[in-house]
């Protein structure tokens, strides 16, 4: 599914990723934990193809294709989804219109039929019900005036509609209360299956109580310094990153 080898990247000439190796197989959920400034968000932006994040070495393959050579929208159409740490507001753009445009753009690239407004609404309403989201969120501007929790839920709704093969959740748990956290986790768990993988980036162990990962990696100063099973997350919760930082 995702195969990252010795990936290095910099922003404004400053090296952030110093050689990442990571393999996620279909159906697996991996978690990346690490202190602030370790390169967690950089990794997610590099994988999604954000401008200004320069890859200086290594490779990343997605479904056997060279991910790093593709435009962001091509990566999206291939099934890569990034749930943003800070979802962006698009004033005047209706949420329903945005979601349908995105879904149809991806369907078009994949050679699938586009959904008309009615088909889309039906689908969207069903997914929203699963996520206990009020229907008026479709009518509002994209993320405009949403609370922090609503923005994160909106990310999960987009994920549920776009049905990616790989979802990267960039600190989706930050600023969420326990109920919102549960909804986000339910959204991810509902997609779990042999065709869905996830990379959950988080600072805290809390989210991993609800989305139980297959593997946990510790990212420090742009490198994965430790990997293990779910128990590693609990260990980190107890001891913190001090040992890893000193190493």
């Amino acid at each position, binding site marked *: 599914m995702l195969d990252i080898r010795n990936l290095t990247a910099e922003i404004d000439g400053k090296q952030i990723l110093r050689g990442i190796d990571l393999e996620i197989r279909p159906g697996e959920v991996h978690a990346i934990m690490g202190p602030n400034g370790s390169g967690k968000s950089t990794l997610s932006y590099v994988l999604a193809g954000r*401008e200004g994040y320069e890859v200086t070495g290594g490779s990343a393959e997605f479904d056997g294709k060279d991910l790093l050579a593709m435009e962001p929208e091509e990566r999206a159409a291939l099934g890569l989804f990034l749930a943003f740490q800070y979802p*962006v507001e698009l004033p005047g753009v209706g949420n329903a219109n945005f979601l349908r445009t995105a*879904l149809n753009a991806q369907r078009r690239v994949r050679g699938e039929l586009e959904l008309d407004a009615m088909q889309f609404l039906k689908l969207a309403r069903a997914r929203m019900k699963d996520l206990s989201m009020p229907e008026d969120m479709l009518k509002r501007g994209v993320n405009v005036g949403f609370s922090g929790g609503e923005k994160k839920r909106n990310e999960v709704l987009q994920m549920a509609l776009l049905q990616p093969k790989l979802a990267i959740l960039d600190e989706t748990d930050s600023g969420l209360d326990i109920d919102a956290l549960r909804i986000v986790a339910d959204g991810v768990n509902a997609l779990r299956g042999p065709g869905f993988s996830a990379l959950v980036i988080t600072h805290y162990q809390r989210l991993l109580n609800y989305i139980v990962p297959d593997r946990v990696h510790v990212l420090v100063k742009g490198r994965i310094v430790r990997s293990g099973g779910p128990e590693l997350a609990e260990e980190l919760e107890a001891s913190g990153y001090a040992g890893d930082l000193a190493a």
Partner: protein
Amino acid sequence: MPAVTETIDTVQSVTESQYKWGFSTDIEMDMAPKGLNEDIVRFISAKKNEPQWLLDWRLRAFAAWQAMEEPRWAMVSFPPIDYQDAYYYAAPKQKVAPKSLDEVDPELLRTYEKLGIPLKEQAVLAGVEGAGESPAIAVDAVFDSVSVATTFKDRLEKEGIIFCPISEAVQNHPELVQRYLGTVVPQSDNYFAALNSAVFTDGSFVYIPKGVRCPMELSTYFRINAKSTGQFERTLIIADERSQVSYLEGCTAPMRDENQLHAAVVELVALEDATIKYSTVQNWYPGDAEGRGGIYNFVTKRAACRGARSKVSWTQVETGSAITWKYPSCILQGEDSVGEFYSVAITNNRQQADTGTKMIHLGARTKSTIVSKGISAGRGQNTYRGLVRIGPKASGARNFTQCDSLLIGDQCGAHTVPYIENRNMTAKVEHEATTSRIAEDQLFYCRQRGLTQEEAVGLIVNGFCREVLKELPMEFAVEAQKLLQISLEGSVG
């Protein structure tokens, strides 16, 4: 950033191909000799078989124009215009005036078909919910200097509505024309209005009788085709007491290396309790990426809300023209009359737009709303210029103005020049303005969801313009949205 160079390259590569209305029609024309003098004014008047009063009216305008100077206060720059180096009359040759659509030159009909303008009297909207009469649009097609076809005239006549070329109205309804022509925009109002008054050739005339709600959208479609010609159309719309009308205009021109002048005058008169909604999608040829060619669009549009509780609403989407100089205005004379101005203006490449409105509050409790959305891309320059004037008798008058500018790239400019003059202490005037950029994180967010760069820009721009676009009649709104996207294609690297 290399993105900037890339932007410029992309803009250059797409510009020429993006103007889809740039073809010209090969048709035999009847032209006046080049240049402008009293004889040309007489020539035009004679061609139109006009009564003496109108010739005299034109000659007064011409005399006024000669004594005036081209205005230079707008934030636009262009080389001097040689007014003698253009044709002021150009009409497709026709043996006899066509009495019905069947008699119109097929070459002309094909031209309009290619432009997507319905010149057939049939329902133009299919698949609308519910049975009953399908909505239709009546079209007056103005080709260079003359109107070549007007549809649905008979059906409108049944309601007492007059919708015809103004030259025809001069012949058939001289009393109405004489009573209202030049009463909103006087001959000597400004340089371009005076020029228009001297040499105007055609345009639409609309009269809605008392108490009649016009059953369909009326529209005029302007096409400049001939080389080295200017278009000087004149539109006059009169909505009598308690009547209602929605009128649309669209315009295109071939791609030519020269600049062509379009100096129109539009006058609207709304009597007591009448409502006029006037929508424009302006898509004149904007010139190429280097700023070669394109239409100089110097237009005077003004409405007089003469009656109590009358209402005029201007909605414009300005995407074309090399230069746009245009201020659709409302004179709010009647008590409780209402003026509205909703505008989207886009400048890309080397386009320049200086546009806005004037709301002149004379009557008590008059109300006006101004919503202006300016979008600048490439090396475009976009200026909002507006005047809100409250007269001493306009007690309780209210105005709300909102001016938003959106910048795409770092070589364009947005300017806002609002004037407020208040002579009545009970009036309330509000002005809000914002300037923003399409942010990199907005584009990336959209692209991460699968939208291409162009789709993302289109979506964000349409969101920015939503308040204005929703004022357009539905069939126009869709066209306008597409046009916005086309106008901005390649504007982000």
